[in-house]
């Protein structure tokens, strides 16, 4: 853990212009990713978890403004890279896997070509070597009979197989960081397990860092080392999995954990978080969770809580974190 972070983000803001409105999707997110670390970014839809990661890579669509105080990846300052240089980082040093394998592959391009293209674009390997490596990658992600499947089109594969192809595309150039944006959300549980086990094998074999964006705490806690909870475009809690499990300090984290329905919940009374997450049309000036929060005090409606350190590696953005921790339940 003495290594310097692979990725350091400080005060990331992302705004969308939609019609006459501005949507404040990400409002000052800061975090780091260490080499070899797996970070789970969890939150509900609209929490800004995908936008945070994609805006770093310039992959957000629409009329979007990104502001960030610092975005350091290895030796590069991502904010100072030209478009050309950023393209070079994408796919070579940072790989991305998206949520929906049914639409994320080009329907009129052979799957083998789609994997090779990642290598050729970065001059990672000459065509002959890239072809052989594609076959190796297919084997590694668990696509049987790769040589024959090389020339097939995406529609000839099942959803799980397509997600494996996406994985092969993302790791083709051996990136040091893999961003997985809800990679198993669209899949059945058995297929989810297969994809996650492939991902975990890849991660340990290559010492690759993974940022796992997910709304599924089961996936995040079992796969990741550290968890980042996002709410309304801000990090509300950042903790190692052990702390996250034992001492969640933000009322929202607690609420989400309480909302998880697992086998064995039968007969238990449910405690959903009341209300729904806000859509921000103005930058937040107070705690955005306060209206739904059982711990809220007048201070929460007035002052924006900053991320502060509770203990080593455990940060929370809540005025009342100590009270939350003391509260048993």
């Amino acid at each position, binding site marked *: 853990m003495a290594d310097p972070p692979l990725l350091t983000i400080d005060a990331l803001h992302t705004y969308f212009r939609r019609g006459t409105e501005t949507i404040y999707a990400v409002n000052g997110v800061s975090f780091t990713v260490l080499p070899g670390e797996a970070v789970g970014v969890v939150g*509900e839809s609209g929490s800004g978890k995908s936008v945070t990661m994609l805006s770093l890579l310039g992959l957000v669509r629409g009329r979007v403004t990104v502001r960030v105080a610092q975005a350091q990846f290895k030796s590069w300052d991502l904010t100072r890279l030209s478009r050309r240089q950023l393209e070079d980082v994408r796919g070579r040093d940072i790989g991305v896997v998206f949520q929906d394998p049914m639409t994320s592959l080009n329907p009129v391009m052979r799957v083998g070509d789609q994997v090779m293209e990642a290598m050729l674009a970065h001059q990672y390997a000459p065509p002959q070597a890239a072809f052989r490596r594609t076959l190796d990658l297919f084997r590694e992600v668990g696509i049987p009979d790769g040589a024959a499947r090389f020339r097939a089109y995406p529609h000839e594969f099942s959803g799980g197989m397509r997600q494996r192809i996406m994985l092969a595309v993302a790791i083709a150039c051996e990136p040091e960081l893999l961003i997985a944006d809800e990679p198993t959300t669209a899949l059945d549980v058995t297929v989810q*397990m297969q994809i996650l086990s492939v991902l975990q094998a890849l991660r340990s074999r290559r010492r690759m860092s993974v940022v796992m964006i997910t709304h599924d705490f089961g996936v995040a806690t079992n796969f990741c080392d550290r968890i980042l909870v996002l709410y309304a475009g801000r990090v509300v809690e950042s903790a190692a999995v052990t702390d996250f499990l034992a001492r969640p300090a933000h009322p929202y984290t607690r609420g989400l954990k309480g909302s998880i329905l697992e086998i064995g*919940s039968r007969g238990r009374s449910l405690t959903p978080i009341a209300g*729904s997450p806000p859509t921000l049309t103005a930058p937040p000036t107070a705690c955005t969770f306060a209206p739904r929060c059982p711990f809220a005090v007048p201070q929460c409606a007035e002052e924006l809580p900053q991320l502060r350190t509770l203990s080593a590696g455990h940060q929370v953005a809540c005025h009342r974190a100590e009270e939350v921790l003391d509260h048993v339940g």
Partner: protein
Amino acid sequence: MSGEAPILSVQDISKDFVVNRRVLHAVRRVSLTVPAGRTVGLVGESGSGKSTVGRLAIGLLPATGGRSVFQGHDLSQMSARAMRPLRHAMQIIFQDPQASLSPRMTVGAAVYDAMAIHRLGTPKERWSRVEMLWERVGLPSSIGTAYPFELSGGQLQRVGIARSLAVNPALVVCDEPVSALDVSIQLQIIQLLKTLQDDLGLSYLFISHNLAVVEYLSDTVVVIYLGEVVETAPVEALFRRPSHPYTRLLIDSILRVPAPGAPLQPLTAPVGEMPSPFAPPVGCAFHSRCPLAVDRCSQEVPTLRAIDPEHWVKCHLAD
């Protein structure tokens, strides 16, 4: 279960589709019974045919074989027209409420229309019942003038529920009603469904791929694989003693949030994928993925047999 009169009884129902001149046996001789006021959970992966069973059960799709008896009416013997007056008693809510609502109709008009179809009450009474239903499902009464695209997924699902409640159903088929929602919203909808059942005495056929949700809501669980029932049992029995290897696989594939200090779950890949329903394996449909399979499994089709009263398993090896 045996003590109560069943409101819905599905018997050996089958459905074949013809796709590109190939026959797809989507549902093969599925039987299940929903007692009045109870919930039957129907579990399976995508492509297992579980949604088709739901539609067959209430006669939205004509069955290729077998029958479905609802409140004593054999739906397989009835024309679509003859079923219409029965429809108010058997409702369905969908996974994607946005797709099931007309984009050109306000959600208030959609709920109103449900009553208008069955000529329930005067127009005035219908509108006031719409107001009452909003309250019932936890929506503000101002929502009636909104169009579907203006609402969130959770709100839309509540609208869908209000619309099916509008006609006083006895049975509601819930087709993955919470799958598209965020966890905290999922919980709200599940809670709502539970409350409505307790208050109104509804019966549910609850279709889902999410075992935890099914366990929470159901009294009986039916597990379906490649269009066939592989295991069915009262909910406690099924989760206490899952006896079909496929049921075990489904349960083991769920990633749970570990208790503090407990070890993490190993991420080990289960074998194989669901085979093409066009070419299901010979013998036991699951043998190609089964860790316990023996020679017999690839040759002989197992029968659904009771290993306990009310606990049925379709496996040669189950004891």
